[in-house]
């Protein structure tokens, strides 16, 4: 039972090649639930890190049998720590271009602090625990993106801090 004893809903978790509509996902999440005081959201976008001369496309691969399991577990862990009424996680795969949407996390809670913390926690763990890999195609050729130390740091702070 999460803090506050609020009845939890099964989160919406999807991995898809199609784009997503943030407004529609948010409307679906909050539909008619007057217990929700706020929704924290994060949308990840493909950056053009090299001023237009760089990334032309990004290809996202994943491990289908594990992805859903990993994302459900991350959301469950967030619910142990914060009051989460409902949540949505959508991650795209396949070929993407700069300014395209990659990932969406929505967390609906009674109070904003819970939604902000849970949303950032889910993003941090998604970055370091969910089995997705990015390959960049640039004018200099293709290469697999390296994991960033800053993402490991972002994840490990949840294990040490007293939120």
């Amino acid at each position, binding site marked *: 039972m999460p803090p506050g004893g609020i009845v939890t809903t099964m989160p919406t978790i999807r991995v898809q090649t199609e784009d997503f509509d943030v407004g529609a996902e948010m409307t679906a999440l909050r539909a008619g639930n007057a217990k929700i005081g706020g929704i924290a959201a994060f949308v*990840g976008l493909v950056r053009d890190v090299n001023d237009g001369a760089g990334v032309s496309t990004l290809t*996202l*691969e*994943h*491990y289908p*049998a*594990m992805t859903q*399991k*990993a994302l459900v577990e991350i959301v469950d862990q967030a619910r142990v720590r914060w009051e989460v009424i409902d949540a949505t996680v959508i*991650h795209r795969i396949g070929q993407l271009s700069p300014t395209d949407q*990659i*990932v969406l996390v929505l967390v609906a809670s009674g109070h904003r602090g819970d939604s902000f913390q849970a949303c950032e926690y889910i*993003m941090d763990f*998604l*970055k*370091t*625990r*969910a*089995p*997705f*890999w*990015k*390959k960049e195609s640039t004018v200099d050729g293709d290469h*697999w*993106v*390296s*994991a*960033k130390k800053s993402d490991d740091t972002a994840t490990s702070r949840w294990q040490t801090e007293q939120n």
Partner: protein
Amino acid sequence: MLNVLYFASLREAFGKPSEHISSPLPTNVEALILLLRARGGVWSESLGADKRWRVAVNQEMASMETALNAGDEIAIFPPVTGG
């Protein structure tokens, strides 16, 4: 028999997305890694102790000590970079 999957840069380096490994059946993740490294070439290079790679057993993150059993699905991949 173990079903071993490779992803991303490891899939490309090894030139295959998966393979079956049966005899001798490695008893834990470390034994499987040693068996693969013993192939030399890209195998010993990509799975070196100085390289960053991860192992999942039955879709859960595993360590070198995780035990393996016939029928398990083992995935070996570089650190994840989604989001």
